[in-house]
C-alpha cells in the first residue's frame, strides 16, 4: 500500500509541488487533492489578461479533471469538499460534507484572501476582491453595462484590474493612498511615466487620498467617498489593497501560525507530517505574494515529500513586473534610497517612455527599476543574486549584457547558469497579489 498524500489547495503553489513531486517520485504516494473551486487547476496569475479579454479561461487552465484522472489522483473539487479541520491525532482531513480523508503526509496550500478595507459599506454588493475566476466573472458581468468603476489600491493587482476594466469599457478611477502608483516597486520618476501611460489610456487617478466610506443604493454600491470629501460614483469597486494568508484551517487545527503558517527551511510545519507552501505560509518572518518564491518553495517541498531530503528554502526577494499589455516595467531589490553609500546609474529616454535606474553598493547591484525597456531585467537580477563584482561591467552596465567578446575570461558568470535563470525569471515573475 502506498502512503497517502493529501493536498489541500488546488492553486499555483500546491499544483507546482504536485508536478515536481510527480516527476521526482511518480509512484511514491496515493494522492488526493482538495480544491475549493470546482475546476481543475488554473494559472491564477493570468487572471488579469482574462479580465482584460486578452486571454480566455481555457487558455489559463493548467490541468483539467481528466489530467488528475490520468495521473491516478483523486480530485475533490467544490464547496462541499472544503477542508474544515485537520484531525492531527487520527491523521485525517475533515471536509464540509463530513468526509474524512486519511493522510500519511499532508500539504497545506490554502493561499490567501484579498484584504478588504474595513470601511463602512464594504459589504455592499459590487465590492469585490481580485482573486479568483469568480471575481473575474463578476466584474465582466458588471462591465457589460459600462459605467463607473473604482479600484482601490494602485499596486500591481489594482493596476491590472483597472486596465482590465478600462478595456471592458468602464470608466475607471484608481484610488491610492501613496503619492504615486506602485510605490512599493517604483521610484517617483518611473511611476510618473507609468501614470502618464495609464492616463493616456483613459484611467483616472486619485493619489494621496484614503477611502472613507462606500455608499450604496438598494444594497448595491453607488459611490466611494474619499477622505478629502470627494464622491466617486461607482457601480463596481475592486479592492486591491493587499492579501492576507489563509490560515484559518491551520490555526483551528492547532498548527503554529503567526501572520502565516510557520514553516521551516524544508517547508515543514510544526507538525512533522504536515507541510505548507505558498501564500499561506510564513517563512522566517516573511509572507509571500509573488509567484516566483512560491515555485521555489514548491520545488523544495516536493524534494522533501519525495524523501530526497536535500533541498533547503531561502528567500530571495523576487523581481516584479506588471501584466498590463504594452507596459513594461521591472523592479527588484532596493529601488529608492537616500543611503549615501548607494550609487545610482540612470538612463532616460522620456520620449520613448524609457527609464532605468540601477542601485549599487560596494560595487554590487542591490536593486533596479526599469521602465519601458526591461529586457535586461533578468541579467540584472542575476548580478544581484550572485553579488557579482561589477567592476568589469560598470561601463555600459545599464545597457545590458555586454557582447561576449568584451567579457573578461576571469568573471565568474557561467553563461549556462545565467540563461537558465533568465528564462525562469521571465516566465515566472508575475504578481499574484501584493504582500501585506
Amino acid at each position: 500500500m502506498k502512503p497517502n498524500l493529501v493536498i489541500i489547495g488546488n492553486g499555483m503553489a500546491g499544483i507546482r509541488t504536485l508536478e515536481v513531486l510527480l516527476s521526482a517520485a511518480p509512484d511514491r504516494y496515493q494522492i488526493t487533492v482538495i480544491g475549493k473551486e470546482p475546476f481543475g487547476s488554473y494559472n491564477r496569475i493570468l487572471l488579469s489578461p482574462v479580465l482584460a479579454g486578452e486571454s480566455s479561461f481555457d487558455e489559463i487552465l493548467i490541468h483539467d479533471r481528466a489530467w488528475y484522472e490520468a495521473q491516478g489522483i483523486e480530485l475533490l473539487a467544490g464547496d462541499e469538499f472544503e477542508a474544515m479541520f485537520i484531525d492531527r491525532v487520527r491523521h485525517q482531513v475533515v471536509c464540509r460534507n463530513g468526509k474524512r480523508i486519511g493522510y500519511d503526509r499532508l500539504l497545506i496550500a490554502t493561499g490567501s484572501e484579498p484584504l478588504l478595507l474595513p470601511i463602512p459599506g464594504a459589504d455592499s454588493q459590487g465590492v469585490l476582491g481580485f482573486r479568483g475566476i469568480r471575481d473575474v466573472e463578476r466584474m465582466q458581468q458588471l462591465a457589460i453595462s459600462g459605467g463607473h468603476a473604482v479600484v482601490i489600491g494602485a499596486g500591481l493587482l489594482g493596476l491590472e484590474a483597472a486596465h482590465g476594466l478600462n478595456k471592458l469599457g468602464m470608466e475607471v478611477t484608481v484610488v491610492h493612498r501613496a503619492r504615486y502608483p506602485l510605490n512599493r516597486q517604483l521610484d517617483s520618476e518611473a511611476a510618473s511615466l507609468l501614470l502618464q501611460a495609464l492616463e493616456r489610456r483613459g484611467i483616472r487617478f486619485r493619489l494621496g487620498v484614503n477611502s472613507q466610506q462606500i455608499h450604496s443604493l438598494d444594497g448595491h454600491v453607488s459611490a466611494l467617498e474619499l477622505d478629502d470629501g470627494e464622491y466617486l460614483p461607482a457601480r463596481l469597486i475592486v479592492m486591491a489593497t493587499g492579501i492576507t494568508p489563509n490560515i484559518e484551517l491551520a490555526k483551528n487545527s492547532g498548527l503554529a501560525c503567526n501572520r502565516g503558517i510557520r514553516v521551516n527551511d524544508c517547508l515543514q510545519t510544526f507538525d512533522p507530517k504536515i507541510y505548507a507552501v505558498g501564500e499561506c505560509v510564513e517563512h522566517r518572518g516573511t509572507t509571500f505574494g509573488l509567484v516566483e518564491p512560491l515555485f521555489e518553495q514548491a520545488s523544495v517541498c516536493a524534494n522533501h515529500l519525495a524523501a530526497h531530503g536535500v533541498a533547503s528554502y531561502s528567500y530571495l526577494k523576487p523581481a516584479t513586473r506588471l501584466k498590463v499589455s504594452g507596459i513594461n516595467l521591472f523592479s527588484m531589490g532596493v529601488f529608492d534610497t537616500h543611503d549615501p553609500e548607494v550609487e545610482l546609474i540612470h538612463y532616460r529616454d522620456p520620449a520613448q517612455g524609457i527609464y532605468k535606474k540601477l542601485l549599487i553598493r560596494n560595487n554590487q547591484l542591490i536593486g533596479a527599476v526599469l521602465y519601458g525597456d526591461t529586457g535586461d531585467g533578468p541579467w540584472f537580477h542575476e548580478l544581484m543574486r550572485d553579488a557579482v563584482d561589477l567592476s568589469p561591467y560598470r561601463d555600459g552596465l545599464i545597457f545590458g549584457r555586454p557582447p561576449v567578446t568584451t567579457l573578461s575570461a576571469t568573471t565568474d558568470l557561467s553563461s549556462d547558469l545565467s540563461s537558465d535563470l533568465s528564462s525562469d525569471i521571465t516566465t515566472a515573475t508575475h504578481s499574484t497579489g501584493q504582500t501585506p
Partner: protein
Amino acid sequence: MNRQASAIPATQTGAGVFKPAPSQPASRCVKTTCPYCGTGCGVAVQISPEVAASNASAGLSLSGDSNHPSNRGTLCSKGINLLETLDPAARLLHPELDGQRVSWDQALDSAASRIRAIIDQHGPDAFAIYGSGQLLTEDYYVANKLMKGFIGSANIDTNSRLCMSSAVAGHKRAFGSDTVPGCYEDLDQAELMVLAGSNMAWCHPILFNRILAAKEQAAKAANPNHRLVVIDPRRTATCDAADLHLALKPGSDATLFNGLLVYLADHNRLDRRFVETHTQGFASALSQARSSAPDIASVARICALQPQDVETFYRWFANTAKSVTAFSQGINQSSSGTDKVNAIINLHLASGRIGKPGMGPFSITGQPNAMGGREVGGLANQLAAHLELDDPMHRDLLGRFWNSNQIAAKPGYKAVDLFRAIEEGKVKAVWIMATNPVDSLPDADRVRAALEQCELVMLSDCMAATDTAALAHIRLPATGWGERDGTVTNAERCISRQRAILPASGEAKPDWWALSRIGQRLGFEEAFDYQAPWQIFREHARLSAFENHPRGILRDFNLSALAEIDADAYQALQPTRWPIRTLSTDGIPQGTARLFGDGKFFTADGKARFVAITPRPPINSPDASYPLVLNTGRIRDQWHTMTRTGLSPRLSAHRPEPFVEIHPAEAKRQQLQQGAIARIESHWGTMLARITITDNIGQGQLFVPMHWTSQFASRGRMGALVNPAVDPLSGQPESKQTPVRIKPFNARWHAFLLCREPLPRPIAVADCAYQVRATGAGFQRYELAGASKVADWHRQARQWLNVDMSTPDEWLEYSDPAQGVYRSALIRNGLLQAVLVVGATPQLPEREWLGSLFNADALNDSDRRSLLSARPASGSASSGPLVCACFGVGRNTITEAIAAQGLDSAAAVGCALKAGTNCGACVPEINALLQVRQVQVETAEQG
C-alpha cells in the same frame, strides 16, 4: 569678362551648391595639381555628365595623374581626399561692402577710390598686400606688379616667409641665385639618400615612396651600397625605412655637417678640381669646420650620438658619389637655419656632387607654390623674375619692361612688421588675400586689435566665416582650388598647370582678376588689361627672358621658350622644369632637369661660394625652469593650419587632436599618463595637448604638431609656445627648438561632443579649458576637458548646444555620477543632432560608431537604445580609430583581419583590406599592429 568664366558659366544654385555647367555632354578628364605640399603632384579629375545637385563632389572622381612626372599617378592621403574639402557651405559667394551684399562693380569702385584717397593723402607705403603661399603664380605676379611696379611700394609679403626663407638665403649665398640644383629623378638615382630635418614619410609621402621604390630596386639588384640615412632628433615614420637614424641633439646639425667636411678632406674625398675651378672660400670653410668639429669623437659628443654611427654616416657619404642631401623645416626653421643650409651645400660643393644625376643638395619645400611666389618676387625684399630690389640695375630693367617709373626702391614690411605698421597707423589700408592672419600670425590678439582700427581692410577669400573676415570692410569672393586656373611651381622647379574642374562658386572671381580690375581703376588701364591667366603667364615668361643674358642681367629663372605662349598652348602646357629656354622641333617647351653640372653659377664671377660655418646653438637654451626642448612639425593627414584639410572627415580622423610626444622616462618623471592632457609652458605662452608616450622621442625633448589654430583648438596653438627667435639672414623663426616645461593638466572631467552643426557660439574657456574641434563625416567633433566641476551636465549640454527646454526636442540621458559618467543625446525629428559623452578619465568610448549615426536617415530603434552605450548593439562591431585615411580602414578592422586571416605582413593586410596600398603612409602603423599580434601569439605559445 574673364574667358574662363564665360566659357563655363556658373550655374550656382541658391543653396550654394556646386553644379558643373550643363553644356558638358560627356564625361571629361581635367588634369590639375594638388594644392598641398611642395611635391606638386598631378591630379586627374574625372567629371561625369550626370552630377547630383546635392553634393559638390558627387559626379567627380579623383586620382593621381599617371603622366605627371612628380607623382606618376600616385597620391597621398591628403591628395586623394581632396574632393572632401570642396565644401560649398562655407564659401563666400558675393562681394560685400561694409556688411552689405553689393555688385562687383560697386565693391571695386569703392575699394579703388578708398585706396586712391589713402595713397594720395599718405603716400604709397600707406597701402599693403598680405598674401599667401596658396596664391597661383599669376595671382602673385599681378599683385607684385601692382604694388612694386605701379603703386610703388614693396609692402607685399606672404606667409611663405615662415617656410623656406633659410633655404632661399642659403641658395643665394652659395649659388648667387635661389636655385634648386637637382630634380626628383635624383631621389630615384641616388645611392646614398640623406634626409635632414625631414619627416618625409608623412610630409612628402609621394617623394618618400620614390625613395622606397629605389631602395627596393637596389635590394633586388643586390646593391649593398644603396642606403638611407635620416637625421632627426625624433624617430619618425621616416626612420622605419632608414639604414641609419642619427637622433642627434636638437639644433646640433651644423656640427655634424662640419665634421663631415673635415672627414672628406682628411680622407681625400674632395673634388679638388671642381673646388678650384668653380668655387671660392673653401679654405676658410674647412678651417672653420675643423675648429668646431675636429674629429668624430667631438662631433659625437656635441651631437649626443654614438661615435660609430657618426663614423658610419661619414664613411658612407665619403664613399658614395651618388649622394643627395634633402633637407626641410628641421634645417630651415632655426636661428642658424641659413648656416645649416650652407653647411649642407658646402659638402656637395667640396665633393663636386651637384647638378649631376643622383647628386646634390635638395631643399624640399612645404608650400604648393612657394617656388612660384619666389619666381615673381612674392616677398617684400624681392622683385619679379628673380630680380633684386636693392639693385638699381635690376629696378631699371623692370621699369623698362613694365613701362613704369614707379618701381619700389626700398623693401616693404615683412609679415609681422606689416601688422605692427598697421597698429602704428603707418599702413592705413591693407588687402589680405587667401589667408587668415588673425589666427595664423603670432600674437594674434595684437593683429586683431591692429585691424580693428585700420582705415580700410579688404579681404579676398573663398571662405565666408573667418576671424579676419569679421574685421574686413570690403570682402571679395575668391575662387578656390578646383575653380582656379593658373600655374604653380614645385620643389624641383617644375611648372604645372592648376586647372578648373568646377565653375566658380557664386560670384567668386580669381584673385588676379580682382587685382587687375583694381589696378585699372587706380589708373593703370593698360598695364592691367588682363582677361585671362595665359596673358599674365606670357608676360611673366617674357619678363624672365628680358635681357637675360651675360650682357644684360643673367638670371637662373628663364622661361624664354614660353615668351610667345598663347591660350591654346597655355591650356595644353605640360609640367616642365625651368629654366625653359628651348623648344623642341615640334614646338614643345624643353625644361632643364639640373643646373650647375657645368660648374657655372649666378654669382658675379660665376663661381659658387663656400660659407664658413660656426655652429651656433639655438638662441634659447633649456634651463632649470624650462628644462625640455620643444620640437614642432607636421602630421600625416593635416596640412598647415588645417583650413582645407580640417574640412575633410577622413583626414581629421587620424590625429584629431593636438598631441605632445614624450619619452616614457620623461613622462614618468613629470607624472604624465598616456592619453591624458598636459600643459606645456614656455616663456612665451602655454599650450594644452593630449599626451602620447613614445620612445620615438629622446629624453629631454617634446614634440607637438604645428597645425592646430584657435579655429580648431582652444589652447592647441604651438605658435603660442614657440620662441620669437629668428635667423638673422632669412628672418625664418626658430620653430624647432624652444625651451619648455610640461606638467599634467588636472582635468576634473574629459568629454567629447559630436554634433550635426558646429556649436552656435564658442564654449567659454572658463567652463572648459581644453577644446579641440575636428571635422567628422556629417558632424563636428569636439574633444573637451575641464578643471572645474560641472554641477548639472544636462544644463551644460543645453547651454553649449543653445537649446532651451521649451523646444520639443528629445533628450536621452545616461548618468553614473559616482564614476563621473554622464552622456546625453539630442534627437530632433528622428535624427541624431548631438551626443555628449563625459567621463572622469581620458578613457572615453570610441567616437567612430557614434559618428556614423549622423549619416543614418533616421535613428533606428536598436541604435537609439545603444546610442548612449556608445557601441553598437552586439553583433555589429565598430571599426575603431582610423588608420588608413585613404581607404577609411579602422584599427579594429585591421586587428581582427590579422588575427582571423593570419595576416603576417603589411602587404597581406593590403591585399585583404586595401589598407596601406595607396600612399602607404599608414604602413608603419599597420606594421606596429602586426607586431602586437606577433607578441600576443608568442606569449600565448610560451604560456
